[in-house]
């Protein structure tokens, strides 16, 4: 049986445990199935809405929160702060998600709590401006403070030994603004003024001081 054919059954939870495991393994290496599943999942979400059914008993909310409280860790683990803005495979606020049209969620926020908080603040700022890049594959979200994040929708992960580097043009000169490795949400290390251009190039691991190649994409605020 062709494993691609399991997408509909997977989205409907109609696979047995064995088929489910097999499909999930396949999913990790099949972009076409992931895309198809994305569409089917939104349908199954709609089927959930259409289910009807009675309202939950009021005690359920408290039951859940009580249990959560009892499992709550006393200390949120803090890890050593990273020097470069590492892209998380996604925090997303109202602005970014509405703009993205596809869901991204927190992959890991434990790496750098301050950066995560900043991303959250930018993306959920109702007054943030959103600029599409020229190729339509990323969006720049700029908070009124000038803090900005680039939401990269489609991009192959950087090859070994390489990073994507962010640039902000100041008076025609490209200033480095951080590196990232894969699609997701990258926080810019420089503030953006209206009219400035942001670009991304592929550079050697860790980034360089001046761009060496043509920009992969650009956005002008």
């Amino acid at each position, binding site marked *: 049986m062709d494993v691609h*054919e399991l997408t*509909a*059954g997977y*989205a*409907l*939870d*109609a696979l*047995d445990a064995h*088929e489910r495991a097999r499909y999930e393994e396949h999913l990790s290496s099949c972009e076409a199935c*992931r895309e198809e*599943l*994305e569409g089917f*999942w*939104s349908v*199954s*979400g*709609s*089927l*959930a*809405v*259409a*289910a*009807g*059914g*009675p*309202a*939950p*008993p009021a005690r*359920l*909310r408290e*039951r*859940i*929160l009580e*249990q*959560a*409280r009892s*499992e709550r*860790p006393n200390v*949120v683990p803090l890890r050593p702060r990273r020097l470069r803005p590492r892209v998380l495979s996604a*925090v*997303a*606020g*109202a602005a970014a*998600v*509405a703009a993205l*049209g*596809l*869901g*991204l*969620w*927190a*992959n*890991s*926020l*434990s790496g750098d*709590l301050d950066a*995560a908080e900043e991303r*959250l603040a930018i993306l*959920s700022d*109702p007054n943030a401006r959103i600029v599409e890049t020229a190729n339509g594959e990323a969006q720049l979200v700029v908070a009124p403070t000038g803090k900005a994040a680039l939401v990269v929708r489609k991009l192959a992960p950087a090859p070994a030994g390489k990073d994507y580097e962010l640039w902000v043009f100041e008076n025609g000169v490209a200033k480095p603004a951080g590196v990232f490795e894969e699609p997701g949400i990258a926080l810019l290390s420089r503030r953006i003024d209206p009219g400035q251009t942001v670009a991304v190039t592929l550079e050697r691991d860790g980034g360089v001081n001046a761009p060496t190649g043509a920009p992969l994409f650009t956005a002008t605020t």
Partner: protein
Amino acid sequence: MRRRDLAHLSDEALVALVSRSEESALGELYDRIGGVAYGVAYRVLRDEALAEDAVQEAFLGLWRSAGSFVPERAKASTWILTLVHRRAVDLVRREQRRRTEPLDGAPEPADGSAEEAAWLRLERERVQAALASLPDQQREAIELAYYGGYTQSQLAERLGEPLGTIKSRMFAGLSRLRELLAEGTETSAWTYTS
């Protein structure tokens, strides 16, 4: 964090907060999604206690693992409902409850309607209308699978059809629903209650 502060956040931002053990964010997500979650769990399980268990386990799963989400591509609300539905299906298969019970249509919501946002009611009607417009065999396959908790192999046996036929019906039905539901609304705003 105060509820007022959470109201303007997206579901995805709330999930990010949940991953940092922000309890009020979990409560806010429950307030947004818990009703639909319980509704679908009840539809599958036909039992209040089991439906509560399914919802509770799914939300606690979210609480424990929000920080390690695999970024597959769905909205946070869809992802949470997927957790709930899967849990419900696993429970129903274990309980084998529905084997002896008729599978009727969507029950009328009991007393949630008064509080329920009008657009949620509209969205439900829209999806039900889309389902109703499918060819009977496709609708049957989707309803038995999603609301009945049957595996595709069990469906093939129950309906006396080859497995390939069942898979084709589910695929065709979901594809058609995707088209029908994409018309008109680009964003389903039902989780944004602020």
